[in-house]
């Protein structure tokens, strides 16, 4: 329980960021950022372009290391040497560009870098990957012709569905979503939002970056606002409104 910093609920937060500071050379990207994320909670990270949202995601996913500050997972301090080490601790990222290999089948993307093999020769177990992937996409209601379909033949929404399904399959603690619906139409966006909301039931913690405040208010339990690398504040969605968030993002009405 040593990891509890300033949380309302009793167990350790899944992710606890304390006084994270990140500078590239002399340029400060993130200044003194602190946030707790609990299991089954969706927190949205909002802010203008260049506010530091992506940098923060990269810090949590192990791509960048913070200049100073502390990251705790389930109360234990962690330090990621690279993205693989964050992944091995149960953190998955859905990237803006989805990071899918377009000419490979869905199931190979689902198991990209973690392919299943079978004894005695350690050859790929395509049948099992195909089967497990089919189960997974059916479970998450991602409607694709088959787990054997090639990514290139799928729509943007289907691809996004697969990227999210992959993240949720491998994540045991935390899913980071970077603009998950930026390239999607209305119906596809609704579908993806449904998927994201369903992740709460899996007891994962979710950090989502979005430019759509409507989406943020539909999905998030709490909203964290960044402006020019500074943490402006965190609000519970139920206790705030768009006007307040907008003024926090822009800094115009000085409400922050």
């Amino acid at each position, binding site marked *: 329980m040593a990891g509890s910093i300033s949380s309302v609920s009793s167990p350790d937060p899944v992710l606890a960021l304390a006084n994270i500071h990140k500078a590239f050379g002399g340029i400060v990207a993130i200044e003194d950022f602190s946030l707790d994320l609990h299991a089954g909670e969706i927190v949205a990270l909002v802010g203008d372009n260049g506010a530091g949202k992506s940098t923060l995601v990269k810090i949590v996913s192990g791509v960048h290391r913070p200049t100073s500050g502390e990251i705790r997972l389930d109360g234990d301090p962690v330090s990621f040497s690279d*993205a*693989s080490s964050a*992944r091995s601790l149960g953190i998955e*990222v859905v*990237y803006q*560009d*989805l*990071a*899918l*290999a*377009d*000419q*490979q089948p869905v199931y*190979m*993307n689902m198991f*990209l*870098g*973690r*392919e299943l*093999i079978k004894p005695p020769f*350690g*050859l*790929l177990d*395509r049948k099992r990957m195909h089967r497990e992937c089919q189960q997974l996409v059916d479970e998450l209601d991602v409607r694709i012709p*088959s787990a*054997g379909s090639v990514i*290139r033949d799928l729509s943007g929404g289907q691809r996004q569905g697969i990227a999210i399904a992959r993240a949720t399959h491998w994540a045991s603690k935390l899913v980071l979503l970077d603009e998950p619906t930026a390239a999607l139409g209305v119906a596809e966006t609704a579908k993806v939002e449904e998927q994201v909301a369903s992740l709460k039931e899996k007891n994962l913690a979710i950090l989502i970056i979005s430019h759509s405040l409507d989406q943020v208010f539909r999905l998030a339990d709490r909203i964290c606002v960044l402006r020019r690398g500074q943490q402006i504040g965190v609000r519970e969605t139920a206790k705030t409104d768009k006007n307040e968030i907008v003024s926090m993002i822009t800094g115009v009405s000085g409400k922050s």
Partner: protein
Amino acid sequence: MTSSLSLLRRLDLQRSVIYVGFLAIFLFFAATLYDDGFLTSRNLTNIVLQTAPATIMAIGLVFALSAGEIDLSFGSVVAVSALSAAVVMQSFPMVVGILAGLGAGALIGAMNGILVAYLRLPSFLVTLATMGLFAGIARSMTDLRSIPVLNDTFTGIFGSGKLFSIPSLVLWTIFAVAIGHIVYRSTRFGAHVLATGDNARAAQVSGIKVPRIRLGVLTLCGTMAGLAGLLYAGRLQAAKYTLGESDLMTVIAAVIVGGTALNGGKGSIIGALLGSLLMGMLNNGLILMGLDVSDQMIVRGLIILIAVAVSLRDTSR
């Protein structure tokens, strides 16, 4: 049911092109050149024997192209490897010669690979340079002289020998294609090669060691070219700087016709075998038809054009 469905789906345009093209050209030659002995088992075996080195190189190139890289230097590697093996065998046991030949190939491949994977130089330019570099080294190694290979065991294993009355070059082809196909289709390495060529960033964030894959495929390419050099030296019972000189275009054509994408992420070892046999068949048939070398070059060039057109049409879809 589902497996036959997915089999149908896998038989896409590029893959069927090679089967249909192979069959069409085979039937064409079989009909028109029947009297010239095209269909005799001796002639058909000859085609396989002549294409064995190209097939071996094609396997390496499928891996390189699938990972989004290219190797232009393998033709020069063939000569350097064959000469290294021949020279070493003049004063050392056969095994040392074989190791020298394969080792030279692997080393040059690894050199290409290090420059490409870790210095991030484009493989096209790196291997264009090493192609010239090692063509020159092959010439200077023995002052343009040809080196005889007199070791009977060596020429048996890599050239004219037989096992259970199957020519050794046929066995090498079958062996290399089988292993290559399994590694390509059914191992993590094969999957990572395809992922790297398809979307290197996706591969990277998925924990695949992309530089290691790039180094791996180019080293493999060099090693396969080294093996091809041994096969040439075994069959011709001599090594010369000209070995492999004219293989660059043939092998690239074989691989592309066989359904391997020029820009990575997709390929086929079986297709490369058929492509290589197709090129051999073309050579053979065109010679039987009485075409001279220049006509053969023209026909081969046209075939490559068509193959590239089909390949690029499919990938820009």
